[in-house]
């Protein structure tokens, strides 16, 4: 009898979550060590989507790399294109026209809304609510149709060029954006009303996956994940790039650093983005958007730049080293999702199996960017 009891000691179970799990947001794999329903330890595995974008861009000319940036964070294409164009423009020591900058900001903020809308939908799916995902896609579809009429593609735009835009926006651009604003606001409300203050959703996300401000900085979290912990850090405010200093907007900040605060920050950010778009569309200056470089081969002088910008997921940085040829010597991207995801080990410890998907959802990772 005693022997039996000794043999029947409980051991922890290894649970392999991903890469084909529906809620790991792509090909991300976690090895969970669980005791019953409690997670004791987690070992994340990434790299299933590693396409070597950084290495590939060493073999591409400067204007071709924009297509690679489109495919890194495939939910915020315009923002990614912007940061790369800014980096090369800094390397070339040139400035695009004001109209270009304004159109870029409008498109980036629209893309931020589209990205956050998708986030609201997916966190709903992770928490088990099916309807918000479908509601959020209505708004996202509207924005993408707008993008299609401007750039010709719904996701992989390749619209920002170094020093300008690919082509002038359509004639009714201002009207289209003005028309879409109230509709998008309604879509956002409709989507998040089902979630944000829903009692079950609150009980699923409040005080779950808490990360304190110190830990968040230590892990290099940025974007809504850092702001959810109560730190007011937004590259658009701290080091304004493009024309963000012209606009009046707030940076929503959470308090507790839990899943709900991260969710709330994103929901508020969508409204702030709408404010920015409203101001930008009113101030939209006339001018030329074509790049002064034309079809010339871009051949910057030797040098290195580090440019950062605020993506929907956090701070994206581009470190670009040029050796004077038509191809970059080295291009390194600081992907926001990569840093945000590295905190998963801390966040998941001592949480429930059911919470793991919600926490992962609240980090809002894009694996295309994590793995590059």
């Amino acid at each position, binding site marked *: 009898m005693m022997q039996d009891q000794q043999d029947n000691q409980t051991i922890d179970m290894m649970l392999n979550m991903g890469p084909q799990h529906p809620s790991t947001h792509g090909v991300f794999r976690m090895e969970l060590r669980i005791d019953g329903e409690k997670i004791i330890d987690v070992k994340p595995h990434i790299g299933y989507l590693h396409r070597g974008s950084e290495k590939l861009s060493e073999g591409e000319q400067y204007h071709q790399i924009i297509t690679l940036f489109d495919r890194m964070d495939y939910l915020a294409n315009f923002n990614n294109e912007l940061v790369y164009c800014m980096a090369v423009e800094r390397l070339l020591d040139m400035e695009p026209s004001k109209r270009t900058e304004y159109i870029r900001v409008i498109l980036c903020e629209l893309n931020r809304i589209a990205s956050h809308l998708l986030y609201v939908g997916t966190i709903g799916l992770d928490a088990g609510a099916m309807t918000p995902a479908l509601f959020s896609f209505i708004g996202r579809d509207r924005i993408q149709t707008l993008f*299609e009429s401007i750039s010709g593609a719904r996701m992989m735009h390749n619209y920002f060029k170094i020093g300008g835009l690919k*082509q002038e926006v359509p004639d009714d651009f201002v009207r289209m954006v003005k028309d879409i604003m109230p509709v998008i606001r309604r879509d956002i409300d409709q989507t998040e009303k089902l979630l944000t203050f829903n009692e079950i959703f609150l009980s699923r996300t409040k005080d779950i996956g808490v990360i304190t401000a110190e830990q968040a900085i230590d892990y290099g979290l940025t974007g809504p994940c850092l702001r959810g912990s109560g730190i007011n850090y937004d590259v658009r405010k701290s080091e304004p790039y493009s024309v963000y200093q012209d606009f009046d907007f707030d940076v929503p900040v959470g308090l507790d650093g839990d899943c709900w605060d991260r969710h709330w920050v994103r929901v508020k950010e969508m409204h702030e983005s709408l404010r920015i778009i409203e101001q930008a569309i009113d101030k939209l200056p006339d001018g030329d958007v074509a790049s002064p470089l034309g079809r010339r081969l871009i051949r910057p002088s030797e040098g290195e730049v580090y440019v950062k910008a605020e993506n929907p997921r956090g701070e994206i940085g581009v470190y670009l080293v040029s050796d004077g040829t038509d191809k970059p010597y080295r291009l390194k991207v600081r992907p926001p999702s990569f840093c945000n995801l590295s905190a998963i080990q801390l966040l998941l410890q001592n949480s429930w199996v059911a919470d793991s998907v919600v926490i992962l959802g609240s980090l809002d990772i894009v694996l295309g960017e994590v793995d590059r």
Partner: protein
Amino acid sequence: MLSTVKGMIQTLSSTWRGLRKPVTKLYPENPTVLQNRFMGFPGLTWDKDIDEPFCTGCMVCIRNCPTQCMTATMKDNPKFADESSKRRKIVDEFEINLNRCILCGICVDVCNFDAIVMTHEHEESGSYRDGSRMKLDGLLEIGGKYQTQSGWKPAPKD
């Protein structure tokens, strides 16, 4: 509890909306309206004045393609000899591997002769893998279709 009730009311009203006018459309019957600038598969344009393609096979697009999805060869233009055309060289073979093409539109930007366009074609499908390698006549066909549909004109020469 209140928020839950609010959510229930909202889904009820959305059911009413869904019964009257759902957002989803049936696909082949009501295809998505393509915007004017939609970038589908690339196609080659046809110079109707001289009755030959615009493309001279100069390989600019091929060198600028980020994915190396195209190949082309050029030949001496027979119409140049009888002076009906100003093009000394003309495209002989042109192939685009549509599996590799990422529809970025760089080839259109760099082309000096307005010879390549992003057509509205996006529903190509084939039963075998090699079928997506599109040859010159296929490219000219979809390009010509785009030309007639959208009234495309080459940019005026300076």
